[in-house]
């Protein structure tokens, strides 16, 4: 089993999700008698990668690959895949990977199992995905031939990476036919984040279960009583009920308060990555199967509209 891991970087800094994927690749190799090669488009990154237990590090140096442009990246990996014939190409499931790995699958005409949370090698190499917004897992296998796989953030721990010393090999690619139909501009941030949720000991976070804008008041009252900040999942911000700087999750803030009280939030992975480090997670949800209960310290299966007003009242009298 020949495994090629693409290591994403930004100005010479390795993306941690692709480093986790490298650990995943090491584990797969260990269980299948395989070898791992790490690939980067940045020479500094390659010297860091050479310190890990990999068969070799492949480096491509080309000015067109300094910053991300999917067309150049695709052409580079297409050439490399043809020259090296890996059995598996591994990505960290980052936003950047979303913007080219699926197209690579079509270009190489090989399947892509995306956003996996792990793998197992019982009878055959099986990849685990989280589906239906975290409600279920699925086990998938590839029937034949080479394939692409990407691993979600948190699927493996980088502190488990095996170190070693690998050779670095320069590889060349021909980017002349890459195309010019995609022209990325400068990256930017919107106006400064108004609220730093990390200052709060208590966060009362509302999800779509809050139902409508007026109901936000219930949660605001509770968070005021607790001396905390109000936050939310993405749909609440999408609906315009709270400002975007109050969103917790992969496209919002990452928080770790003493108390994270979740009201009507189901627990999709993109939300969980933003709050799983909280010291105490208390979840109120009317669906006993809501995935957020899986990481809750304390859970209440119930209706927030019945509980929250009573809770606020009792806290005010406490």
């Amino acid at each position: 089993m020949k495994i090629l891991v693409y290591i994403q970087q930004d100005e010479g800094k390795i993306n941690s999700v692709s480093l986790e994927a490298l650990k995943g690749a090491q584990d797969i190799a260990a269980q299948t008698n395989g070898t791992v090669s790490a690939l980067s488009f940045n020479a500094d990154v390659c010297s860091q990668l050479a310190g890990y237990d990999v068969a070799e590090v492949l480096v491509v140096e080309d000015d067109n690959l300094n910053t991300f442009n999917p067309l150049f990246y695709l052409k580079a990996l297409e050439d490399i895949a043809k020259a090296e014939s890996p059995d598996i190409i591994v990505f960290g499931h980052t936003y950047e990977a979303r913007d080219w790995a699926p197209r690579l699958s079509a270009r190489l005409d090989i399947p892509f199992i995306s956003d996996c949370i792990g793998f197992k090698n019982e009878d055959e190499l099986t990849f685990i995905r989280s589906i239906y917004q975290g409600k279920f897992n699925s086990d998938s296998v590839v029937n034949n031939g080479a394939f692409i796989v990407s691993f979600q953030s948190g699927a493996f721990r980088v502190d488990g990476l095996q170190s070693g010393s690998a050779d670095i090999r320069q590889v060349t690619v021909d980017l002349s036919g890459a195309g010019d139909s995609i022209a990325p501009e400068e990256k930017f941030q919107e106006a400064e984040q108004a609220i730093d949720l990390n200052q709060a000991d208590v966060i009362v976070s509302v999800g779509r279960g809050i139902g409508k804008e007026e109901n936000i008041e219930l949660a605001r009252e509770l968070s005021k009583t607790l001396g905390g900040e109000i936050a939310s999942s993405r749909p609440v911000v999408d609906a315009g009920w709270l400002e975007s700087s109050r969103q917790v999750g992969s496209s919002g803030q990452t928080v770790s308060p003493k108390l994270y009280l979740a009201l009507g939030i189901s627990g999709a992975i993109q939300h969980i990555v933003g709050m799983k480090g909280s010291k105490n997670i208390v979840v109120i949800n009317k669906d006993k199967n809501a995935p957020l209960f899986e990481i809750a310290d304390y859970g209440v299966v119930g209706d927030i509209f019945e509980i929250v007003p009573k809770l606020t009242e009792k806290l005010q009298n406490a």
Partner: protein
Amino acid sequence: MKICVLIKQVPDKDSSLTIADDHLTLVENNITWVSNESDNYALEEALQLREKHGGEVIACTLGKDSARQVLKDALAKGADRGIFISDSSFESLDVLSLGKVFASTLEKENFDLIMSGLQSDDQGNSQLGLIIAELLNMSHGTLGMGTEIIDDSTIRLKKELEGGWFQWTKLSLPASISIQSGINSPRYATLKGIMMVKKKTVDEINASDVASRASASNITVKKLYVPDKTKETQFIEGSPDEISEQLVKLFKNDIKVLN
């Protein structure tokens, strides 16, 4: 501007889902079906582009018979026409194979823009738009949080990046772009819109007649299951009053966030 919007029918987020005895499918009789959330945002963006720049919006879905409903909903909101690719066994097919069915079906329409939600709320592969882009030789962009038509041959897409960053990207048309939730406020169908649905056409294509449809999937799903719990959760039970009492004690004595 001729725009295609891809819409998938998925279970409503509030449906309680149960895995069937085959450990491969869901028990269907208690599922409420809806259009995938980010696809609704893609449809809205397409309708707004048409309102500003003229043209045509065609909604397309691939699925079982029940999926016709997502096209009706799109037509009621203002899409001009529908394309229904009927495929009763699509769920067993890998995304690349499905992408080939879409590409052969959509190729002859010569769309300027193909829009889709960034991922479906069921399988969440987040691949289809890019696969179609590759197969039809279009430019692409993902996680769109804003669009701007520059001229007849160029669109600018504001892409969401991680950690609060964004990036505008210029794309030559034709382009296949995926849309992130929150880009706009999707409209509801009006009564007039609903009345208009009957007058609009939906072209029907049977996936089995599409030459590129693979007969077998290259990825096989072996089973579905409920994930193991990773944490010991202490459940608090009782009447709303009792629960509230206990939560106050918990906040005070255990978590110690009350002064």
